[in-house]
């Protein structure tokens, strides 16, 4: 579980090129971490690739914060 959280945070850091200390659970991708619409798409794709998931657009729309991302992956992997 800590492993998933760590991996998700790492993906966010790399994709959005933001420092680790900014990637806090409540941080929003757009307002806090400076992601634009294309960044958001690529972020979802990176998560799909890392965890071998398929994340439909309706679900992707609900992933707005770091915590949303962590929770989604955990749920999808049945943790």
């Amino acid at each position: 579980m800590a492993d998933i959280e760590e991996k998700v945070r790492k993906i966010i850091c790399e994709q959005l090129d933001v420092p680790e200390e900014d990637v806090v659970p409540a941080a929003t991708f757009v307002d806090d971490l400076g992601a634009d619409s294309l960044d958001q798409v690529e972020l979802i794709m990176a998560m799909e690739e890392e965890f071998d998931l398929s994340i439909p657009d309706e679900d992707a729309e609900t992933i707005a914060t770091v915590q949303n991302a962590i929770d989604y992956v955990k749920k999808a992997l049945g943790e």
Partner: protein
Amino acid sequence: MKRRVVVTGLGMVTPLGIGVQNNWEAVRAGRSGIGPITKFDTSDFPSQIAGEVTDFKSEDFMDKQQVRRFDIFVHYAVASARMAMEDSRLKIDSTNCHRVGCVMGSGLGGLNMLEYYHKVLLEKGPQRISPFFIPGMIANMAPGQIAIEFGAKGPNLSVETACAASNHAVGESFRLIREGIADAMFTGGSEAVVTPLALGGFCAMRALSTRNDEPERASRPFDLDRDGFVMGEGAGILILEEMEHALERGAHIYAEVIGYGMSADAYHITAPEPDGEGAISCMSMAIRDAGMKPEEIDYINAHGTATKLNDLSENRAIKDVFGEYAYKLAISSTKSMTGHLLGGAGGVEAIYTVLAIKHGLIPPTINYDTPDPECDLDYVPNVAREAKVRVAMSNSFGFGGTNASLIFKAFES
């Protein structure tokens, strides 16, 4: 009263180095930027050499976040634009941003990214294509991103006339300022297509030199033993400005742009018209546009690709336009040192032409060992030549038979 257009900033990234100073030092020394291709395995290719940009770090010129969004040709363009901006000390703000534009040339745009994502599509499917693929590779993303980086809200255009692209871009920028539509323009071009597809394509045409064992001696324009061009990559950007605008802000001025000519061979998709008809037409048009006589030209930076056909037809065209005076002209091809930057050639070569005027030094045609009896003009063989250059011309001729000539003059207010 025609508005006058001057050059106030220069920036470049080429196989001769990063920045104008490094480039000019290499030109002065007659150094070659050609070597074996290092970007991919070339064992299956007949031609295995190119002019590659080395020691370039995109992060030195762009935000790290931006780097992965764009094909490398955009990185070269933005880096060159940044250097040109710093050189010109032009300030762009709300008072003038709509009067500053960008016209750039490129032959193929983001071919590296195209090849990469095509592979992704075939191996992993469409869902793995990055949303940045399309914007990152379209040819007009070079002027697009330059406008974004510097707030240039004036005309924004991309020209894709193959090997003439950035020469046309400079010409169009010149016209936009002269016609009062803009006061300053970022212009020139960028190309980065040393890729398996492009190398393979040019090899298939038998257009490239195969002198793989002696890369530095492979690009030999006008030489009897020339066997084709050598690919190069990089970018060259000039900042053009309306003269009064430049003088008012105390800008330093490299040279004046005074003429621009364009034509089509209307002959063949790749081979030049043998008597150089298209080249004759566009050089003559540029001279007329400049209000000059042919005998007033001191130096021509030739298209000079080192193919059998181009060098011959360009030679014939020069003789036709200049008559007996052709034998008094200094002509050189800097492609002998940089290789052929394709859509970026015009921009980079405009810079060398402007520097020749500014510094009174004519770039050499290196690797000139054996004169070709059919190309018997003065090609400034091997050694850069100190000479007063008051007026100089730069030629670029592209596949499809599209031609462009620019004329620059030492600035006299």
